[in-house]
């Protein structure tokens, strides 16, 4: 991968990389459809799709396949795809915007804030998906604004300070969530809260997909349209101003939308750590730092990453391992590697 950084990128090599990652996504998606505790054969998948399209009744021997495919695996994979993209795109945007390769939705406190917000909604309003999303978004936004303002106030080594500010804000909201668990009704609310905070895609149904995917899709599309200005924002405020970028307005838009897509993911799938840090880095190493290509590339790579991690989580053992554990096992050493590499440079 390191070699690729020095390679003279021509247009065709970028196109090749996109083609490669799209093929990878398709392969990961199709592969993941078939594997799991209940394996699905290709022939059976095609058959249940055909029966569904032609609106015919399901023969007995395909009933299980039909349920697993339409009600369990397809919504789950679609959700994983979009959540992976959302986390990767959000991480890419935050890293460019704050000119800081060490930040991510987790490190800035967005994920913790959104988790707290979602927990609050579960406690106060009950299991209303809409309320959970709104509350997650609100507190996610509060968290990132708090971290950013705290770091800006310090005016010293902003890269480290922003990371520290994020740690502080995250700690506050994580404590808040623990407090919510402490005061929750142990028979009704607590199980719902704990179940949801574990994260993952095991309970995803079509209603969750309908709630989250449109928000994430629209958010990613807007960020995709605004991607090039991120290059200029990454040069710093004064330079961006002199190049005609309305810095404050743009920053607000980027933060709001990047937070919205993370909050929307967190509200349905809980916190899935490290993706927003690791995937943008990998994407940058492969395709370069220009957001013109980086943002869409990270979106696709994020989807591939989460789909593979989720498949791993539900196949490597008899039970299902929470996906957050797997992403942490990969993400934490990766951050260690980045620090080690930075120290060497």
């Amino acid at each position, binding site marked *: 991968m390191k070699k690729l950084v020095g390679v003279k990128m021509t247009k065709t090599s970028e196109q090749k990389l996109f083609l490669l990652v799209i093929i990878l996504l398709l392969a990961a998606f199709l592969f993941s459809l078939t594997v799991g505790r209940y394996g699905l054969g290709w022939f059976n998948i095609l058959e249940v799709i055909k029966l569904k399209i032609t609106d015919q009744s399901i023969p007995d021997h395909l009933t299980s396949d039909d349920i697993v495919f339409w009600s369990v695996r397809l919504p789950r994979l679609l959700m994983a795809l979009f959540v992976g993209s959302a986390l990767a795109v959000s991480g890419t945007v935050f890293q460019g915007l704050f*000119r800081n390769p060490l930040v991510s939705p987790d490190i800035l406190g967005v994920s913790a804030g959104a988790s707290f917000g979602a927990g609050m909604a579960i406690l106060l309003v009950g299991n209303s998906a809409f309320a959970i999303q709104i509350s997650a978004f609100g507190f996610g936004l509060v968290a990132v604004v708090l971290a950013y303002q705290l770091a800006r106030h310090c005016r010293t080594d902003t890269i480290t300070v922003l990371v520290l500010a994020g740690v502080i804000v995250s700690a506050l909201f994580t404590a808040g969530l623990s407090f919510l668990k402490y005061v929750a009704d142990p028979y009704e609310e607590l199980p719902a809260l704990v179940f949801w905070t574990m994260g993952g895609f095991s309970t995803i149904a079509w209603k969750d997909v309908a709630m989250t995917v449109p928000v994430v899709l629209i958010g990613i599309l807007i960020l995709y349209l605004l991607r090039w200005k991120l*290059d200029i924002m990454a040069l710093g405020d004064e330079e961006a101003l002199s190049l*005609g970028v309305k810095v404050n307005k743009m920053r607000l838009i980027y933060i709001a939308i990047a937070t919205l897509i993370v909050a929307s993911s967190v509200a349905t799938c809980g916190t899935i750590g490290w993706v927003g840090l690791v995937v943008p880095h990998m994407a940058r190493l492969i395709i370069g730092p220009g957001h013109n290509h980086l943002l869409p590339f990270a979106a696709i790579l994020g989807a591939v990453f989460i789909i593979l991690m989720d498949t791993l989580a539900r196949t490597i053992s008899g039970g299902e391992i929470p996906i957050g554990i797997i992403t942490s096992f990969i993400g934490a050493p990766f951050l260690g590697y980045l620090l080690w590499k930075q120290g060497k440079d």
Partner: protein
Amino acid sequence: MEALNVEKLTFYYGTRCVLDEVSFSVSSGLICGLLGPNGSGKTTLLKCINGIYKPATGCVKVNNVPLDQSDRQEIARKMSVVPQQTNSVFAFKVADMVVMGRSPTFEIWQAPSPSDRVDAIKLLKDLGVGHLAERHFNEISGGERQLVLLARAIFQNTQIMLLDEPTSHLDLKNQVKIIELVKSVTVERGITTIMTLHDPNLALYNCDEVVLLKNGRIAGIGKTDQVLIDENLSNIYELNVNVEVTQRGKKVIIPECWQENNAYQERSLIHEKVQ
């Protein structure tokens, strides 16, 4: 007609007055040098002209239109800036840095097309640094970086160009390269160029007009020959400074204390005394 008018600009950092009723104007096709000691307000003035800092009073007019009526994008279509240095965290390619000069003409959702990039590479070739186009900005030398930032400002194609100490950190060859390029762009395109400078000799040979700043106030203004005189220079730098004429009839600005003995002679004397 003056292309740029600065009218009674006053600016405060907190309660400290950094610029005090600064007024001057520059015509098209001319280079105006801003000179003054450290902390005299040169960079602040440049940022006020560009609208990055909002002055407490006064205004800046481009072709008699006050800038405070324009938004950031409109200002950037009229005025480009060459910063002293840029600290890009991400390793953008040189061609991609130059393309950013087109940003003010783009819609908010617009990204540059391949033809914009081709134009940027052509400009780099015209400036004699086409070989840098695909290299990473963070990996090239200080002189090359300054050249790339200047190329970006040229690519921005504005009527006014502001440069903040464009030659600081550069060796003599690169200083000459940058300044000659600024001069030719200013004349060929008939633009107005304002640059802050530390070295009065650079201003003496390359600026048409000079504004001297001291403690946020104007301490001298006008044609370079008329302003860069012993009295004015000694006043702003609080040091005896002379404009000497060499045997070949060239003017050189030099502090008085350096004229009597050069450093080598002084050290030789000390060395003799010790022995």
